[in-house]
């Protein structure tokens, strides 16, 4: 991303943000509520057209007017709520993007879906509706759907929100496993410190008042050395007043 400006209506949320995500790395985007984390992700996945600036994917500029299909087929998105289609079973949810973007025979599609569900530990839940599952299972099913087309980059919006600590750790481990075994690049929005420390190769800290990135680096470095009080406060779970 190069000098990106994002906002809604008359309100600018992020100004002049530049960021490079390298292949194979896990980048976490963090910051306090309302600082623009989800806005940045919506900009990156093409749901929010930038006011100014440019986005590149694998060296090619992503131009909304040209159409985003070529880029979207290479990206998976795990939304905060999971965003599974309630009237479809888990198998049907996962097979949706495959049916849309490939001409594989049904037998192969069925097996890919099974593979994806097994990958997230839901191999025997294919015939269940999302409403019949717990929050953590819905998140994992949504991850299976996001992974359906073997994306090269996976965007996760608060993957552990609303999950208990154990399920949250399981989700982190799943993301790490997918990154290390399949080499998927990940951009993860979170404000869960344990998750950040566990999964991220690099952190990007956003600030609502600065309307942009105020720090970038490895979590341990940011926690130990960073001089910005806002970054310190975030990592030490303190208010800015101390």
């Amino acid at each position, binding site marked *: 991303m190069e000098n990106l400006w994002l906002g809604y209506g008359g309100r600018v949320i992020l100004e002049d943000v530049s960021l490079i995500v390298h292949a194979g790395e896990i980048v976490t985007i963090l910051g306090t509520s309302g600082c623009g984390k989800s806005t940045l992700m919506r900009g990156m996945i093409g749901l929010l057209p930038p006011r100014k600036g440019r986005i590149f994917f694998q060296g090619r500029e992503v131009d909304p007017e040209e159409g985003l299909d070529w880029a979207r087929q290479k990206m998976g998105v795990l939304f905060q709520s999971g965003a599974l289609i309630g009237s479809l079973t888990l198998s049907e949810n996962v097979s949706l993007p495959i049916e849309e*973007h490939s001409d594989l025979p049904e037998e192969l599609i069925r097996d890919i879906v099974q593979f994806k569900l097994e990958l997230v530990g839901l191999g025997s839940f294919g015939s269940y509706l999302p409403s019949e599952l717990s929050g953590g299972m819905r998140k994992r099913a949504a991850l299976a759907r996001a992974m359906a087309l073997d994306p090269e980059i996976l965007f996760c919006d608060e993957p552990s929100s609303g999950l208990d600590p154990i399920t949250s750790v399981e989700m982190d481990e799943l993301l790490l496993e997918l990154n290390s075994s399949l080499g998927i690049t990940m951009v993860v929005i979170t404000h869960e410190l344990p998750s950040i420390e566990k999964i991220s190769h690099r952190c990007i800290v956003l600030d609502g008042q600065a309307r942009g990135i105020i720090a970038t680096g490895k979590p341990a470095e940011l926690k130990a050395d960073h001089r910005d009080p806002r970054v310190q406060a975030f990592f030490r779970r303190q208010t800015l007043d101390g």
Partner: protein
Amino acid sequence: MHPDTARTPDGEITIGLPDSLNYEHAGRIWEEVIDILEKDQPRKIKVDFRGTGKVDSAGIALLRLLRRRCLKKGIDLQFESVPPSCEYFLRYIESEPLPPSERPSFSLSRAISSLGTSSLRETLAFRDLVRFQGELLIAALKTVRSARHFRWKEVYYYLQLAGAEAMPIVFLLSFLIGLVMAFQAAVQLRQFGANIYVADMLSLALTRELGPVFTAVILAGRSGAAFAAEIGTMKVSEEVDALVVMGFDITQFLVLPKVIALALCGPLLTMWANASGIFGGIVVGVLTLDITPASFLQQSYNALVMTDILSGLIKSLVFAVLVALIGCFRGLQASKGADSVGRQTTSAVVSGIFLIILADAVFTIIFHVFDW
């Protein structure tokens, strides 16, 4: 992009995979592999990965299906020259648990069981509806005792929404029905010189039957569906649970205002529909039958007795209460998920119309017995 195959006389086939085993090529390669399995009936298959760079989920699915087929047919399967990037997937394939069970085939006991389950479900739904009516009655009695605490503002809101805002559509539909009926009747009655009796037929049909039924159907489509969707959405977003936890009586808080509003606006809208239909008849009378508006109205007045109008209004009151009741009931039956709200909304309209017709049949018998 085709796989290279080599055969030996003792029934061994080596399949050399192309450089990419991915979404783009897997479908075509799978068809060729199936062809080899069917035609050659090999004893052993070697899958050679030499020269294969990219394997994605579609490739994995292909290899897994091939493994299953080979296991089933007793064919020995070997993977050779596996690149490091594929090792993870092959480990996964080889540790595959038992394949998911096939969809069960039809059996008589399952069919009977399914019939029993659905009958039980319907019986329980009917029991719930009866219970819901009882709860509504209790809520109504409580409201009579402490009318001061009742949310009358809500009643006015729904009166506006379901009553006043429905007037244009009720007028339009009733006017058109009156117009069409009068026209059809005129074509027949003109042959006997009985033009004026169009007014008798139209006013009787509208006040006793069509006015109440059509108004109730419009209410079911507009308000019944809206009530189900509103309460259903509240249920899905846990607003109903929040109200329960805060100690509210859901029936009194959410259902009763809607029922009272519809009970009030049902008869009023029916009167409006009757007038609109008769107006449609007058237009036909004036334009095609040379009947003046005054004589049309006089003829209608002569044809109608008080019981005709009252029976229609009583019906409309009951229909409106049924529509409101079933709309709220279906809304409260919504479970998690947006699809459930959609299903319950549809069900509210369908059940509402069914109950209207059923109640109309019951009224017809009752009015016949009491000679109304």
